[in-house]
Structures are given as structure tokens and as C-alpha cells.
């Protein structure tokens, strides 16, 4: 049973400074693949290193398999780590690298060799590489040796610190799926750090979004995408990013691009309660549907609940099957990105209109960024 719990864990580098990790509460289930994601400086790597024992805790504790390991030495924690730059021992062969931890545990040589070969087999590492030194290997091979070093230990938890960031794009996509599959096969609890939200979304069972040392939201990828708890998460998760625009409030809704976007009842309640005069609207690119409707308002009956935004196309990014339209909204509504079908996208300079369902519109508090919903 290798569940991990961060309980109010904190790390601060200087007295009185902003904590690098601020009272983190996170419960990771046994066998789960959890991704810590966030921009640089968000504290995700620090949180990982606290779990490894490479950073001390200045507050709270960390519990692993029911045991408080906050002050336990890294080697006694039964965890294995894959470092960003792999940290392979340069003067040792691949086999020695992978078997090093076992050697430190005084495991007999034949057993060590067996486990090393087994790990190499799982990772598809050619046996001929076992006798080579790291500098003779390619980046992808080194990455696999680093993973092999972790697998051989059969630890309670795998820690991975941005293991894909030094690989080229194609290899990154390949290795991503291999890691996810490996974790599924081995079933070991894994904590994975990355700044790339695509990695986070595709690999994790659950994803923890961090910013400024604080946990923003911890949920499944789908939940994060559909129900972001604040503006930061909404803007961070999803590519291309959610369109966020400040809009002033009027009767019946928010004013954007010369039209009024109706707001959901819960939002209207929250607005009234907090006496807001403006808020931040969030609309995902795929929720802006190209339409022929006249923005001036010839609203057809039964469709009173949609809003139509008008604008001018600035730039079209062709992606093949899709296209991304960069549109300047009318009435100084700012610039938005909309997803359209690749083969029938309007040319730059065209005036266009988008239909938006109020259900697809997110509203955020203009000051705190929190999602407004009753």
C-alpha cells in the first residue's frame, strides 16, 4: 500500500519570503499516476523534491504508506526518482548505473544482474548497451537508462522530474505513451512533474495544478477541463488556451463585443451577492461557433439564450483538419481565438460572427479569479 499524502506541507527558502510550497494538501492513492503541473516557479519541482527527501519540510508533513517520512533520509524512503537531466553516473556502465541502488543495499551480484536485465527488457533497452557508458548513448537511450535505474529498485513510489523535457518533439510523444503504459503495467504509484499541460492531460489519472506554491485544483483531466475552479486553471489547461476577456455588467448579462452575453442564474446570483460591476468571461475556442446570424440582433425565437459576437479575422493558423482564427472582436472586445474547420475557414480581413451558448461561458471574479457559480 503506497499512498502518498502531503499534509499542509510547506517549504520556504528565506525567513519572511514567499513560500516555494505553501501548505500543500494532496492525497495520492496507491497505484495512481498523479501529475504536478504549473508554470516555472509554481513549486511543483520543490514539492516533488520534498517527497524525495531532497528538500526539507519547513511546515506540515508528508506521509507515505501510513508512515510519516518528513524527516526520513531519502535512502530510507523506498522511492526512486528520474531526474530531468537523467543524472546518470558518468564513470559507470549502464548496467552499473541501473544496479547501483541494489549494490548499496548489498544485493548479491547475480540477483542484481537479473533485475537489471529484467528492467532493460521491460524498457526495450538492447542488452549490448549494458556495457556502455552514458556518454556513448543517445538522449533517448539515456532517458530509458534513467527510468531503468528507478524500475530496478521496485520502490513504493516513482518520482519523475520533467523526464521528457530534454527530448525532441517526436521522441517526446513516443516516450509519453510508453511511460503511461509502463505505469499501467507496473501499477506503482507515480508522481510526475511537468510544465507541459498536454503531458499532464494525457498521462495523469489526476492532475494537480500549482501556481505560486499553492495548489489550485486537483482533479481528473476531464474535470479540470470542464470545471476549472478558477481563472488560472481555466487559462492554463487546454490548448489553445481559453479566451479570457474582462466584461462589464449590464442588465441581463455581460457586455462583450457590442452585444450582451446572457449569464447563467448561478453566476447572476454570485454577481449580485458580491456587488460586482464587471467580471472575466471565459470561452473555449471550440465553443465559438461560426455563424451567419446578424449580430445586430435578429434573434430567432427559441434561441434567445445564445449570444452572437462579431469581429474581424486578423490571422488564420492552418492546422490541417482544423484552423485557428485570431479574431478582433467588435466594440473593443479584445482578441479571441476560435476553432474552425480547416477547409472552410474565412480569410483574414473578413467580418465574422460567432454564436456562443451561455452554458459554455465561464465567469470569474475580476479580483480573485475564482469561478463564479452561486
Amino acid at each position, binding site marked *: 500500500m503506497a499512498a502518498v499524502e502531503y499534509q499542509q506541507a510547506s517549504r520556504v527558502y528565506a525567513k519572511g519570503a514567499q513560500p516555494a510550497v505553501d501548505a500543500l494538501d494532496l492525497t495520492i492513492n496507491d497505484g495512481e499516476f498523479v501529475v504536478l503541473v504549473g508554470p516555472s516557479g509554481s513549486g511543483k519541482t520543490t514539492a516533488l523534491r520534498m517527497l524525495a527527501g531532497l528538500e526539507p519540510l519547513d511546515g506540515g508533513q508528508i506521509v507515505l504508506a501510513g508512515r510519516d517520512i518528513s524527516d526520513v*533520509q*531519502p535512502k530510507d524512503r523506498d522511492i526512486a526518482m528520474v531526474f530531468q537531466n537523467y543524472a*546518470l553516473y558518468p564513470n559507470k556502465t549502464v548496467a552499473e548505473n541501473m544496479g547501483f541502488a541494489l549494490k548499496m543495499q548489498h544485493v548479491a551480484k547475480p540477483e542484481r544482474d537479473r533485475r537489471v536485465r529484467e528492467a532493460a527488457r521491460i524498457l526495450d533497452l*538492447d542488452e*549490448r548497451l549494458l556495457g556502455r557508458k552514458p556518454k556513448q548513448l543517445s538522449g533517448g537511450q539515456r532517458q530509458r537508462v534513467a527510468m531503468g535505474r528507478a524500475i530496478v529498485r521496485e520502490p513504493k513510489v516513482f518520482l519523475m522530474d520533467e523526464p521528457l523535457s530534454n527530448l525532441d518533439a517526436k521522441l517526446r510523444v513516443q516516450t509519453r505513451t510508453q511511460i503511461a503504459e509502463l505505469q499501467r503495467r507496473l501499477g506503482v504509484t507515480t508522481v510526475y512533474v511537468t510544465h507541459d499541460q498536454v503531458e499532464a492531460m494525457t498521462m495523469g489519472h489526476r492532475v494537480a495544478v500549482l501556481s505560486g506554491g499553492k495548489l489550485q485544483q486537483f482533479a481528473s483531466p476531464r474535470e479540470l477541463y470542464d470545471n476549472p475552479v478558477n481563472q488560472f486553471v481555466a487559462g492554463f489547461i487546454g490548448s489553445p488556451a481559453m479566451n479570457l476577456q474582462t466584461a462589464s455588467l449590464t442588465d441581463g448579462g455581460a457586455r462583450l463585443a457590442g452585444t450582451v452575453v446572457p449569464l447563467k442564474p448561478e453566476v447572476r446570483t454570485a454577481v449580485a451577492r458580491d456587488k460586482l460591476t464587471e467580471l472575466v468571461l471565459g470561452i473555449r475556442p471550440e465553443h465559438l461557433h461560426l455563424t451567419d446570424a446578424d449580430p445586430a440582433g435578429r434573434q430567432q425565437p427559441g434561441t434567445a439564450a445564445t449570444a452572437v459576437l462579431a469581429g474581424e479575422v486578423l490571422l488564420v493558423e492552418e492546422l490541417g483538419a482544423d484552423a485557428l482564427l485570431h479574431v478582433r472582436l467588435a466594440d473593443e472586445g479584445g482578441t479571441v481565438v476560435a476553432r474552425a474547420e480547416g477547409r472552410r475557414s474565412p480569410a483574414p480581413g473578413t467580418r465574422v460572427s460567432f454564436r456562443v451558448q451561455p452554458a459554455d461561458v465561464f465567469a470569474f471574479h475580476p479580483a480573485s479569479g475564482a469561478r463564479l457559480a452561486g
Partner: protein
Amino acid sequence: MAVLEDVTSPPATGLRPRGVSRRERWQRRLPLLPALIYTIVVTQVPFLVTLWYSFQSYFWNEPGSAHWAGVSNYKEVFTDPNFRSALVRSVTMTAIAVIVAMFLGVLLAILLDRKFYGRGVVRTLIITPFLVMPAAAALIWSGPMLDPSFGLLNWLLQPFGVHHVAWLTTHAYGSVIVVMIWQWTPFMTLIVLAGLQGQAQDILEAAKVDGASAWATFRELTLPHLRPYIELGILLGSIYLVTAFDQVRLMTNGGPGTSTTTLPFYLYQKVNFAFDIGGAAAAGVVTVILTIIVASFALRMFARVFQFEDA
């Protein structure tokens, strides 16, 4: 995929890199020439002259007495027990001094690698012996430090039962070596320290996570990493120390007897007191040949040093 990435040889198309134009090549050589010519003239000419004189019998207190002597100088050198013992003494004193200095250097480098209060000041204190003029160091040690009646060392060692030892008489050999070690440990320390500080932090962290104790990390990872630095230090130290002269001249004058006569001192004596240019030249040539053999190892070491740069 289990693919060994092989290096494929380039297709033979008959293409060759064009290289640099002739004019450009001469333009590039020009700035090098002054230093090159200067060095050749000032260093190679004396050695050629030395070679010449080694076949001459010439005593400079009798001007104009130079005449051809064949290989008689060399015969003398090879049969002179003083030359052989001076050679052996130079080699052993250098070896002992260099090895002890390197051992201490590694320990001091480990010390200076830790953060502690006043580390910068301590580093400055440790480097100082290297900066002291070797002649001055010899004087400090032979007088204020090691004097049998008034020296500081005897006073410091009193609690250990040491009484007024005449270091430069009874332990001359050791005393000279101690001064050499004192002056060269900082050199070794700095070189090893550079190596320690060049170690990647994440490798040490990986070792921590892999369960290695501090000693195991040092033994398995740090020492192998330090090996080229240690080798470089030993090599450079040997090159500098084997020609050390000042300490012998000013502390013991080669004595008592000839117990601390090293090769440089032997040559000095031959020139200044035996006035024997021919003999000194022959001894010099033999020394140079021996040094060339050692230096070829050194140059191979320096070839490896290029890997520092290219890597």
C-alpha cells in the same frame, strides 16, 4: 525500440572541405611568430649549447681552456656516485612531497567544498604558503620555525615530549620535504577543489536517493570524477618540484654532507664551485633526456586535458 544507433560512414562523393586560403593561412601564422621565434631562440639555443659543451672540457675559471673531450664528461657523470644519489634524491623527495601534498590537498579541498562561516578567509589563509617567495619560506622555516633553541615548532611540540630538536641537522631530509609540502599543498588543493566544484549536483542527489552513504558516494562517484584532476595536479606538481632549488640552498645547503643534495643543487655546485661547465653540461643533458621521457607521459596527459575543453 532496441536499436543500436550505428555511425554510418559518409557516402564517398569525392567532396573535400575547401579549407583556408593560402593568404589567410599566412595571416594567421603571423601573430604566432614573435612568441614562437622568441621561445625557440631563448630555450632551444641554450640546450644546443649545452649539448655542445657536454662534449667539451671547459672550466670557466681558466678562460680559453675549452677543448674537445669526447664522451669523457658523460663517463664521469655515469660513474659519479654523487650524480646518481642526487638524481635518486630528487626523484624520491619530489615523489614524497607530491604525494603527501596531494593527499592533504584532497582533504583540504573536501573541507573547502563545504559551506561554513569564513570559508573565503580560510581559503585565503590556505593559499598563502604557495605565494610566499620560496627563498623567504626557506628562511622562515630554518630560522623562526625550526631553530633548535628558539624555534616555534619545538615550543609547539613540547607537550608531546619533543625537546629542542635540531631539525635541520638530524632531520634535514624530512625538513626540506615538509617545507615543499607546505608550499605545494595549496596548489593541489585548488586543483582538486576545481574538480569537486565541477561535479554535477543532480548526480550526487541521485546517489542519495539510490541509498549511497556519504563515504560510498565519495568512493564510487567523486573519486573517479576527481581522477583526472588528481593526475594533473601530481604531474604539474612533479614538474615544478623536481627543479626546486631554493629550499635546499637556503635551509641546508645540500647538507648535512650531501643528504639533501638534489639534482638542481648538484648542478649549481658543479658550476659555481667546481667551475666545471663541461661536466655540468653533460649532467644537464642526461637530466634533460630523463625529463623528456617523463614529459612524454605529461604531454599525453595534456592531450586528455583537451577533452576538458572539447567536451
